[in-house]
């Protein structure tokens, strides 16, 4: 009760309301947040897969945090709050957080600072800012919704109920925030600080209930910081030389038979694993999706092959694979 009272008061004071008679509008709080939220357009548009999602700026140099999803299967286009349009580059992603960081060529962008400590507790009022349903277009400000943090809990408390690789704590929200296109949106506390990032739509596989949740900002902080600082980039290092075919790795020597490469960017799904191969020894399985090779992003089978060509056949290969909702690190030893 006290917390609610205090926060309502904070809101009143923050908005510099001339009259205390009515609830202060959330105007400035909302507007400041909207300026930091972006619209992201990428792959999709088929079979109920929306080709858009949300994101928010996390540095003055145009770094954008968003949800790691199929929308990012192509280099996404980013629209800022002021309507400016940018091509973006995926500079890093962390599958286990379902987080990706994009970079646009912009400077002096307004951005959210990520706090080390959690900024909200249950019962705290929040607003969620996202481009759900792609309602806002061009320079229209993103949509804003209000509610409270209903609880902070582990998503894997009932493992397998929600299909996500994320295993940490989530903010459960009492507002219907996680709609199509809302993933990557920002949840803001009453002081205007980033409280969390809206996750992808999740539905309880047994009850059919849709979850409204956000990944807390402090859980994302280190990874976002590392990616921005270049310590944890997944960008392919183009300086690394391609080795002669006989000196480098390739999928078949490692025992990997990939699904037929029929598209320009066929995902690196494993079709079968050769018996008694490096892949078999590492317990790789059919349907595993290879996400990273030595920390570098694999966006297609073509990329997988060319990355393997840069690794000496006598060296280990570090893979990150997605198996259903699990993110697994795997080392292939020749």
């Amino acid at each position, binding site marked *: 009760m006290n917390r609610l009272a205090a926060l309502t008061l904070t809101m009143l004071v923050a908005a510099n309301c001339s009259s205390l008679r009515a609830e202060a509008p*959330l105007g400035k709080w909302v*507007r400041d947040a909207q300026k930091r939220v972006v619209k992201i357009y990428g792959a999709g548009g088929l079979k109920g897969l929306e080709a858009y999602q949300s994101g928010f700026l996390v540095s003055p140099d145009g770094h954008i945090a968003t949800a790691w999803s199929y929308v990012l299967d192509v280099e996404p286009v980013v629209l800022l709050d002021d309507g400016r349009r940018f091509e973006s580059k995926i500079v890093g992603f962390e599958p286990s957080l379902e987080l990706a960081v994009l970079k646009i060529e912009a400077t002096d962008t307004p951005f959210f600072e990520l706090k080390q400590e959690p900024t909200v507790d249950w019962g705290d009022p929040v607003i969620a800012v996202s481009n759900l349903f792609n309602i806002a277009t*061009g320079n229209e400000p993103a949509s804003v919704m209000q509610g409270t943090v209903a609880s902070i809990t582990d998503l894997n408390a009932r493992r397998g109920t929600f299909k996500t690789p994320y295993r940490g704590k989530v903010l459960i929200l009492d507002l219907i925030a996680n709609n199509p296109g809302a993933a990557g949106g920002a949840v803001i506390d009453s002081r205007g600080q980033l409280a969390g990032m809206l996750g992808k739509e999740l539905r309880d596989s047994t009850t059919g209930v849709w979850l409204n949740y956000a990944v807390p900002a402090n859980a994302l902080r280190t990874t976002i910081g590392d990616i921005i600082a270049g310590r944890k980039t997944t960008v392919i290092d183009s300086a690394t030389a391609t080795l002669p075919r006989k000196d480098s790795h390739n999928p078949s020597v490692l025992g990997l038979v990939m699904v037929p490469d029929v598209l320009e960017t066929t995902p690196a799904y494993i079709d079968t694993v050769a018996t008694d191969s490096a892949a078999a020894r590492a317990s790789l399985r059919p349907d595993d999706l290879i996400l990273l090779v030595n920390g570098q992003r694999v966006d297609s089978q073509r990329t997988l092959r060319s990355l393997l060509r840069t690794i000496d056949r006598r060296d280990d290969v570090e893979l990150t694979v997605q198996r259903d909702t699990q993110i697994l690190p795997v080392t292939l030893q020749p």
Partner: protein
Amino acid sequence: MINPRILDLSGLFSLGMAILAGNLLSAADPIKLDAALEQVENSRIESVARAVPSAVSVFVPGGGGGGSGVMISPDGYALTNFHVTSPAGSFMRCGMSDGNVYDAVIVGIDPVGDLAMIRLLGRSDFPAAELGDSRAAEAGDWCMVIGNPFLLATNLKPTVTYGILSGVGRYQYPSGTLLEYGDCLQTDASVNPGNSGGPIYDAQGRLLGIVGRCSFEKRGRVNVGVGYAISINQAKNFLGYLRSGRIVDHATLGATVSTEPDGGVVVSNILESSDAYRRGLRYGSEILEIDGRVVQTANDLQNVMATLPNGWRVKMSYRSEGKTTDTLVRLMGVHLEDELLKKMAGALPPPPPRPQAPGEDGEEKDDPKENKKQPPQQRPGGQRPGGQRPGKPAVKIPQQVKDQLVERKGFANYHFNLAEQNSFINELRNQFPADNAPTETEPQDKKNAAKKGWLLKGETDQTPSQPVTIQVSADKMSIQIGQKTVEIDNRSEMYDVITDGTAAGLLPALNAWQRMLRDGPRKFGESYYMGTMPLGGERPLRDVMVGIAGELEVRWLSHPDTGSVEAIEVFADRDEDPAELWLLREGDSKSMPNVLDLRYGVESILKIKLKSWKEVPASDLQWSAEEKNANNGAGSDRQKAADASQKANANDEVKV
């Protein structure tokens, strides 16, 4: 079925709150709120109390669905959605929070904007909502939606949901050309099927808009935190049109535009027959402002256009070849005359038959398997399955509704148009120049009236001024400026003086006025009350009466408060400028105009300072010999539009 688990949880929550309160305060103390918080809470309670009485629950007679509405005048006029009234047709029953059920009759409908006006009967002191200003609303403002979700208000107590505006100035695509939501409000206050047509109020309880649709998707037809409301400012534009009892249409410029990469709304195609073209708008022109609103993107323009009624004349500024032009533009209809009626017939198919009783209907949607069968994407969040189907025997309409219901093609309810026509002709007969004349309602007077004429004398406002004499009788009229006289005595000459843009164009206007006074709207020709629109792009909105006789269409624009005629427009060729006779007064609104100003397009071609305007026996008027010189009157000031517009192939082109 409501999931019992949810009930358990809410019980737990109350318990939790009690424990929490117990921790903070000793059990004996009453809970004391912080003063500021208490003030906020009280203010919210007051606002809800202020707003609830004007909320209306609409029920389709015969148990076939319904929705919500909001009372906007003490004499019973209420707004709701077109898609709420459409299954009911012309008669519905409405509940209010005073515990009464009122019969209601349809007044006017706007299928494109999804608005309908209904009238609740039986009281003259209904609690009406205070209309707010939706343009002043911002994302983050607290708001509330009050209405009849899932038709729960069978006990006549409307449901209140509270939230914030998630966005303003939103655009939601129409289905076809109907049910377009332009410049609308987006809210996270719960909006569910049955809320359609109901009010969204601001935190002070002022009406901000009419709730009408939601983003529904894979989760079924229940709130997912995104509801949309037609802005009250759009509704204000249409109130006069709806009150006319007509089926009204929205406006288009007759052009397509696209947003330039570096900003700016540029014309990519334009109809040569449009007024915008006549005002100089061309391929490549940049539209800067319309109806007083700055537009920077094609979306902006589309948003503004979606809020304007067919036939309005609004201000427009555009830049072409470095030159900025401020002008007025007449807007054309989105639909052709019968096109809208045809679309309406096909737009809302009769709802499917429903096997279940009304009470069970809402809950069946909670089944996730059922949801998959729901059509995806946005559907108006309105009436529920089971409206009146065409095959179903009609509900018996009460007599008091019948008394206010006249069916006629092109009208939702002609009764209300007739009422406006009557009030127009009464005002016209009670103002200059008719107010001094003896009443002409008796049939025997009509013959005499036909023998009366008008004699107007004055001078032009040029220096040196020239004397002007105008004579108008039932079958003959003339204007003499200096030594030049134009005399006309038939319809085809009246048509020609207007299409030629001559000074004699004021004669058909005065003749029509005289004839309207004499014959009244029913005998004038095809006459109807159109609604309200700006005059010369300026508010307040003027009442507009239309009279069509032969090829000439005459419009009287009268001030809403005084009822005095301020301008008469006579259209000859629909694709050319009408003759506009403006009556400028310095003093009393009922007195003789001081100046007659004849305009074509935005040019004034003749200003006459009036000295006298008398009614005289027609035999006293002086006519020249039989010679005719109608077509070499005071000269044409107009330019004929010539150059062709060019095709554009820009992307993201929108029709406005």
